[in-house]
């Protein structure tokens, strides 16, 4: 039998539902894997061994009673340490929040629990989900960054400690670490997943993200946690799609749009060649491919994104920052300092330009279903001094549209490379369908040599 810790979300859920594996067995297997690898990878802030095993036991008893169980029953998950967990420390990678214990759960925490997931603990985040690097190592090569800010979530899923984890994305903090670690990362439309109980970086840009090892698993987790939340002012009221069904209907080759300008010019030669070869393979498998120009307002996107993030981060942190400035890491400190001197009129200009970009984005999908780019300009950089470059994700986070990264192969140095797929706003079903089609066509699953 396959080792339980290597199974994905759908596989664990199916085994548990058929009573071929117990939630306690699965949780114990993941905890054992975690204990072996954690000293090397440093992906976890806290592991709630007792709470996880107790939850697994309750799940097991419910199954034995014949109770109706959730779609994630018995599936161990990790939560990025900016996501509130009642009674469990949520330190946000920060000295300022070092002893913070929330009194309530984030909506995503509640929804995962309602779906039967077993919360193993809190995964490492960079400081307040921004740019100061974390100690987490890349499972493919511990001399390389796993990316950030969802560093621990990506490393833990790639290392087969857990089948799924939640992260967040304000710029590229879910897809980038997912790509660097060779797994699947999904960021849905803005507002699709509640942000209630998630420590913010920037209210208008923050998304909760999903880190898993297959498109089907991404669909399952999204299905469990998506949906309107009265506690979150930005939560979408639109109905949630049938994501699990969408990935089962992935027979039709998508019409792919490639972006020739910015994304080609800013990737290194190896990433460019790899992406071109992957797109060729997809075309050979039946996808149509055409080049799509960037809209005029794209020229302002990265600048506007940075201005919004700096000002909103400063607005959130200002009271703490004024009294505990020395407790902040250098990059976040700089972000806040800049946010405090940017004039309000420039912040509002950035918001208006963001809206202009959002209005122009649909033109890019006139003749294609999905846009594709390399997930990152390069594979994971060597060293832990940076979490890498978010510029290939930031535009789509800025627009609030759904994106996913798929692992597509390894670089010459043995580090993962990925393909980013981008869909119009609210089109998660389209995105997942196309991603599943590409996943089948490419048939690439990466497992680090641990």
């Amino acid at each position, binding site marked *: 039998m396959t080792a339980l810790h290597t199974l994905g979300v759908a596989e664990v859920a199916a085994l548990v539902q058929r009573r071929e594996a117990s939630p306690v067995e699965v949780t114990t297997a993941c905890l054992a894997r975690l204990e072996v690898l954690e000293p090397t990878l440093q992906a976890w802030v806290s592991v709630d061994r007792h709470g996880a095993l107790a939850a697994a036991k309750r799940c097991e008893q419910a199954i034995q009673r014949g109770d109706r169980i959730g779609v994630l029953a018995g599936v161990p998950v990790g939560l990025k340490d900016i996501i509130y967990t009642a009674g469990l420390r949520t330190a946000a990678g920060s000295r300022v929040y070092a002893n913070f214990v929330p009194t309530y759960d984030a909506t995503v925490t509640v929804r995962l629990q309602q779906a039967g997931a077993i919360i193993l603990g809190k995964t490492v985040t960079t400081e307040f989900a921004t740019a100061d690097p974390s100690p987490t190592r890349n499972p493919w090569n511990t001399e390389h960054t796993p990316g950030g800010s969802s560093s621990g979530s990506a490393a833990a899923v790639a290392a087969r400690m857990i089948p799924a984890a939640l992260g967040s994305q304000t710029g590229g903090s879910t897809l980038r670490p997912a790509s660097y670690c060779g797994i699947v990362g999904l960021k849905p439309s803005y507002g699709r997943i509640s942000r209630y109980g998630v420590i913010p970086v920037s209210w208008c840009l923050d998304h909760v993200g999903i880190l898993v090892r297959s498109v089907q698993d991404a669909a399952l987790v999204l299905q469990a946690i998506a949906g309107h939340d009265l506690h979150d002012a930005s939560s979408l009221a639109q109905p949630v799609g049938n994501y699990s069904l969408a990935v089962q209907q992935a027979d039709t080759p998508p019409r792919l749009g490639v972006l020739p300008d910015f994304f080609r010019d800013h990737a290194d030669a190896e990433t460019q060649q790899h992406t071109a070869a992957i797109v060729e393979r997809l075309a050979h498998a039946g996808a149509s491919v055409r080049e799509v120009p960037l809209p005029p307002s794209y*020229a302002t996107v990265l600048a506007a994104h940075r201005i919004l993030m700096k000002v909103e981060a400063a607005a959130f942190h200002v009271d703490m920052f004024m009294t505990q400035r020395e407790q902040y890491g250098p990059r976040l400190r700089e972000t806040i300092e800049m946010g*405090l*001197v940017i004039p309000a009129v420039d912040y509002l200009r*950035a918001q208006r330009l963001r809206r202009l970009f959002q209005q122009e984005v649909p033109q890019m999908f006139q003749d294609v279903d999905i846009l594709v780019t390399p997930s990152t300009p390069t594979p994971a950089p060597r060293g832990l001094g940076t979490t890498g470059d978010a510029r290939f994700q930031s535009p789509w986070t800025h627009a609030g549209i759904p994106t996913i990264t798929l692992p597509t192969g390894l670089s010459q140095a043995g580090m993962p490379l990925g393909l980013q797929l981008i869909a119009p706003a609210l089109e998660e079903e389209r995105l997942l369908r196309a991603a599943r089609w590409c996943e089948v066509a490419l048939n690439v699953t990466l497992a680090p040599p641990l």
Partner: protein
Amino acid sequence: MAGEHTAAEIFETLAAQARLLWGETDAERQRPALAQTAEEIAVLVRATVPADLEPKFFA
């Protein structure tokens, strides 16, 4: 930034604000970040925004 169109002009305004907030030494330390922020604002200032386009924060 009204009336200021070059990154250099914007930088001077941001640096003055930083000096007021943090003092000369800290403002000096912040010079590279202030220069980058000024470049970003300059990009926004150069762009044309339709007069009737309102911001939308949660979307």
